[in-house]
């Protein structure tokens, strides 16, 4: 479970999508998210959702994992649909009784709610598909290539790397606390949770010192060396442009329906 924490673990299944240049995937994914957010009908976002599911299948991501990743956004999308349907003024299409109260659903609210919910699911599907087929270190390299601040990318790389260590440490301490009945009452739970968070933070600091020493003896001078990727090349540019044009064309067609 720990190693399934980040979606990019599934890149080891070596689907065809995983071998595409990460820079192409970053640009196309950003384009798809922007178009999904700009859609004025739920059709384009629904297409992105379908593409996301098909892509996850192609990348051999287990169905359980896909359901897990989409559960929370799906809950949010449904709640937004309900909120907008019942809280937006407009032409009433039905009145529902709940706990003795009459709630009016409006056509305008339903339309707006369906659109926002579709955008949520479509955009989440794009990002999830991207992360299922892109290793994190390729993403960080692409972000530098795209001009993201060096300090930010370095911190992101360190956070990503150390999250696994710290999760392992938190799991060990939490297990030891449970063994000693650290969560057997409300008071003990509060004290244990505080100690756990403190131990995790302190463990992080102590590890930082050890990491610093290890990095220093390996020539660390305050900056992680960055090896710029090779030029994108004609093939990469063609793939990126082709994908963006295809997305744009689909967007225009579906918006016109």
């Amino acid at each position: 479970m720990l190693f399934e924490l980040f979606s990019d673990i599934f890149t080891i299944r070596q689907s065809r999508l995983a071998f595409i240049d990460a820079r192409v995937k970053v640009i196309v994914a950003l384009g798809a998210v922007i178009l999904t957010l700009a859609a004025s009908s739920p059709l384009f976002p629904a297409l992105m959702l379908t593409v996301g599911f098909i892509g996850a299948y192609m990348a051999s991501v287990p169905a359980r994992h896909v359901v897990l990743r989409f559960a929370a956004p799906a809950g949010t999308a449904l709640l937004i649909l309900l909120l907008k349907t019942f809280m937006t003024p407009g032409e009433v299409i039905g009145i529902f009784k709940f706990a003795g109260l009459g709630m009016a659903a409006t056509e305008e609210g339903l339309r707006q709610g369906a659109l926002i919910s579709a955008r949520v699911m479509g955009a989440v599907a794009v990002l999830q598909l991207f992360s299922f087929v892109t290793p994190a270190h390729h993403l960080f390299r692409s972000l530098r290539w795209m001009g993201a601040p060096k300090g930010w990318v370095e911190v992101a790389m360190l956070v990503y790397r150390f999250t696994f260590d710290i999760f392992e440490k938190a799991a060990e301490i939490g297990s030891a606390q449970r063994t000693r009945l650290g969560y057997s009452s409300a008071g003990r739970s509060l004290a244990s949770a505080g100690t756990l968070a403190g131990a995790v933070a302190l463990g992080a600091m102590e590890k930082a010192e050890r990491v610093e020493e290890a990095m220093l003896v390996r020539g660390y001078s305050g900056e992680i060396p960055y090896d710029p990727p090779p030029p994108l090349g004609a093939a990469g540019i063609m793939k990126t442009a082709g994908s963006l044009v295809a997305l744009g064309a689909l967007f225009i067609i579906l918006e016109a329906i």
Partner: protein
Amino acid sequence: MGTAITMTEMKRKRFWMKVALFAALLAAWPTDAAAMHITEGILPASWAGIWFVVAAPFVFLGLRNLRIRSARSIHVKPLIGLTGAAVFVISCMPIPVPVVGATAHPCGVGLAAILMGPTITALIASVALTLQALFLAHGGLSTLGANTMSMGVIGGFTGYAVFHMGKRLGAGTWASAFAAGLIADWATYSGTALFMSLALARDGEWFSMFLAIMAAFAPTQIPLGVLEGFITAGAYRFIMRRRPEVADVDRLGVVA
């Protein structure tokens, strides 16, 4: 006149009925309280852009701070990376919330702000939120600006200010850390509720939407905020007992 009053009363009654009903509906939803982060796709492009522009200067201040301190001491980056990972892990700790039979999670920004300072906290939050959006489907890229604002900036600066104000007013370290964790958590959720209601509401319904979202968060966030206060205070006390020199944040070279 009588009819006008009756109409106004009816409207008011209907308004509160809606707020109560949707607050109950939202609060009873049996999922993790992932509402900490605004989900991808919720904000229209205009609002997403606005929050990016508003949050960016704080993240750049954090980066500037990082650059200056890194030039003085090369151990700062690994330390911030590890603290960011700690915040990431703390914000992934599922805590049962008995009121709704669901789990929620603390932010960790109150503790980070006390230890690292608010601008570094904004930087750490932006990194943690990006990784969560991309690899965990928590939050989103288009909502990154809004989420960084609510968690990293509002939560971080509030936690930092409350901690130092508490100490200045003579409250003990434990009480100040507790208040910092509590208020930072509530401030984060208030910010999230504000941003969501501003983006979702139309035709003057903003206030009812804001109240509905706030009321929906209340059953999880009131106890969770208290819990986060205890966690922050407990964690800070634990660190002070084991490594009291950490309180000297200038030594770490990362203060605000």
